[in-house]
């Protein structure tokens, strides 16, 4: 992508993101969030976060030829359990990386 196009994309994403933040605080300050939109927005974070994580557990790109990468899958499940129990980002990252490196060293 050309230098100027990269700047354009960053600026546009910044503006679009600012618009979501500004929406009810300033733009539609007198409006209530419609119930259906509230339901949709409620489910966006888990759907998006899982969609970001899942392809990173594959050995290849998403599609027909990708297979799960065992050490990454195991480390991710362990990290999910740690995050669920401790709510600690630092422990999740630290123990998850330790698990991945440990399995890479052994296998």
């Amino acid at each position: 992508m050309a230098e100027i196009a990269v700047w354009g994309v960053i600026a546009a994403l910044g503006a679009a993101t600012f618009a979501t933040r500004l929406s009810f605080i300033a733009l539609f300050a007198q409006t209530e969030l419609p119930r259906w939109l509230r339901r949709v927005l409620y489910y966006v974070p888990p759907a998006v976060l899982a969609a970001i994580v899942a392809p990173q557990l594959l050995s290849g790109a998403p599609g027909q030829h990708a297979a799960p990468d065992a050490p990454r899958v195991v480390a991710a499940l362990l990290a999910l359990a740690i995050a669920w129990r401790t709510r600690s980002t630092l422990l999740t990252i630290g123990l998850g990386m330790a698990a991945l490196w440990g399995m890479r060293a052994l296998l």
Partner: protein
Amino acid sequence: MPSPNDEDRLARRSAFLAGARACLPLLPGILPFGMVCGAAAAGAGLSLGQSFALSWLVFAGSSQIVAAQLFASGAPGWVIIATGWAVNLRFMMYSAALAPHFRGFSGPRRWLAAYLLTDQAFAVTLARILDGRPGASWFYLGIAATLWLLWQISSLAGILLGALIPQSWSVDFVVALTFIGVLAPLLRDRNMIAAAVAGGGAAVLLDLPMKLNLMAAAVAGVAAALLLEKLWPKSQSGA
């Protein structure tokens, strides 16, 4: 004797400082996440100025990483913008929840409050509001502005130092672990789990042109949760 005006100013000040102090327990999560986001942008081939612009113009970690990954994979500009925006749609929900507390703010202060809105500033301020404690708006500005500053510093550190880390350390996996850390507390009820499973599954199985996988997976995840909610509304336990 202090005038009511002075008392007002003192109350604002102490709420602002209480907000700034409330950042402390969040530091172990924020600082590595900021560094990972900075390193991801620099690693995707963005210049120092572009990487830092992503950090202060977008100022939302998950979408910064998604944008960096899409830049690196050669996705078209509009897909990067649309996908990053979809990741940030949740801010509308936060904006609606906090709006009543910013009614006393002037126009420019509302815009500043909106610019500084993040998951953490929202969550901590909401907890204070639910506790019934006063001064939510200035407390919010205190925590949100401090988080902004810490985020920019850690992003800059990641941009400058990220390239020094060897490839063999699989540091890219830190990104996945960071998101797992954010995802886990959300999985409180059946519908949230359905959204995550459908979103993750679709992202792995779909092979769409122009890197539209993530957008399609987000839609699939939300649709699965809404469908489940509609079919079995009774056992719904979500908010």
